[in-house]
């Protein structure tokens, strides 16, 4: 299986001389399900941000889908992002848009026709068990439902890599389990690589996963 993510001696920082991730080397293969854990402030979200190009490597190298994230140009980064699915802890839905419009955002950006967008929206919302909520607005939904919309949006364009930042951080147990199921399915059925940043790995998890842990010094260890 080819590597989807390759980090070699990767260091990340927001300001000089203040390394958050220090000298990390690891790789993630196609179809892997990876949990990244660590104490608060250890740099889990920072590492994830570097995967979608929101933070450039300070030192070392980081390759995502074969693209060097240190040297990547804006246009190439935009193109890469259209092939990623990103899920946030605070959902980051567009509140003035309907659920349907939020879900098809990646398809709209890619220029798909309205018919395809509508069909995909129906399919995805059925998949995340939100059929009938197409014309609702995010703020009319519960937190769990909003996160399911977020996952549907992340799956919309069949991404090769899903990045999820504490996707169940704000949810109750039931809603959390629904989200884990959706991410498991994406990995198992679509062979999508999934990287999840979380402070707690779910106790019941049905697929073989990998576990990377970041310690307080910003070093990344392979636990499993």
């Amino acid at each position: 299986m080819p590597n989807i993510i390759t980090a070699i001696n990767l260091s990340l920082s927001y300001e000089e001389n203040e390394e958050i991730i220090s000298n990390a080397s690891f790789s993630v293969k196609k179809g892997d399900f990876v949990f990244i854990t660590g104490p608060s402030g250890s740099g889990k979200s920072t590492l994830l941000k570097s995967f979608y190009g929101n933070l450039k490597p300070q030192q070392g190298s980081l390759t995502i889908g074969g693209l060097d994230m240190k040297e990547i140009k804006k246009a190439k980064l935009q193109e890469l992002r259209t092939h990623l699915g990103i899920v946030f802890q605070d959902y980051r839905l567009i509140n003035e848009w309907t659920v349907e419009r939020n879900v098809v955002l990646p398809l709209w950006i890619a220029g798909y026709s309205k018919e395809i967008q509508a069909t995909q929206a129906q399919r995805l919302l059925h998949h995340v068990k939100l059929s009938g909520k197409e014309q609702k607005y995010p703020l009319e939904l519960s937190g769990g439902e909003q996160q399911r919309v977020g996952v549907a949006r992340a799956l919309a364009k069949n991404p090769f890599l899903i990045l999820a930042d504490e996707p169940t951080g704000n949810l109750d147990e039931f809603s959390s389990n629904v989200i884990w199921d959706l991410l498991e399915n994406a990995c198992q059925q679509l062979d999508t690589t999934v990287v999840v940043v979380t402070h707690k790995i779910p106790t019941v998890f049905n697929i073989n996963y990998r576990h990377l842990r970041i310690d307080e010094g910003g070093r990344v260890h392979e636990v499993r």
Partner: protein
Amino acid sequence: MKFVKQHLAIILPMVAILLGLEFFIVFDRSTKSYEASLANSYAMLVVAKEEMSIDDFRTWDDHVFKVAEIEKSKIINRVGASFQATNAQNINEKMPNFYSIKLDSYLNNKELEEVKKNFLKSDKVTRVETFDTLHQSNYGLFSFIKFSFRTFIVFMTIIGFFLILKQMEVWNYLHAERMKVMDIFGASLFLRSKVLINMAFIDAIISAFLTSAIFYFIQNRWIEGSNIAILQDNIDKLFTFHDLFTLIFASIIIAMVAVFLVVINVKEE
């Protein structure tokens, strides 16, 4: 209601700026026409030893627009109709030549003095009368009105710009999150700002038409009923069809610059 408020928040300051712009255009056009009529009714008097042509005067000063010789016989007739024919003939021969000179624009006293000096540099010119006292009082009043009106226009435009800056902050608050999310999913700058561009574009067009409608009303209803001669004389110069395009162009430029500034200030988190 929220929808109307959002649009009015940009339309009103835009109309204020466009009113300022259109007032400036109309005022400039009207004052130019008034200045031309003042310049046309003003003439200098030049006394010269020899006969002069317009080219002679123009070599001394390029403000000269028109030269008319005042016939000596008319002066003699006015001074004394009782002169005998031979005396009148002698006076006519010894009298200098008188010229009425019109200038190409409405000059201030300093510039008039400059023209006078240029004429007097020539040995052929013996005297120049500029009638500067009357001219100065007209010019002073005219300049004061012009200055006051321009100050008002500048003030109005500045207020309009401040309101637009305020609206840009509101836009940033309303649209930044959407643009950031779209950026994370790989949307281009144009796609990210498309909603804002569409809204600003429509508001810019509405503002331009609204401003044009105000001027059209002033031109076709208000001025007709008023008794302001200068406005009634220049009614066709107040608002032209061409101005509509100027206003549309200006409002679109202002709106797009505002949108661009908002969009480039939305930073990734």
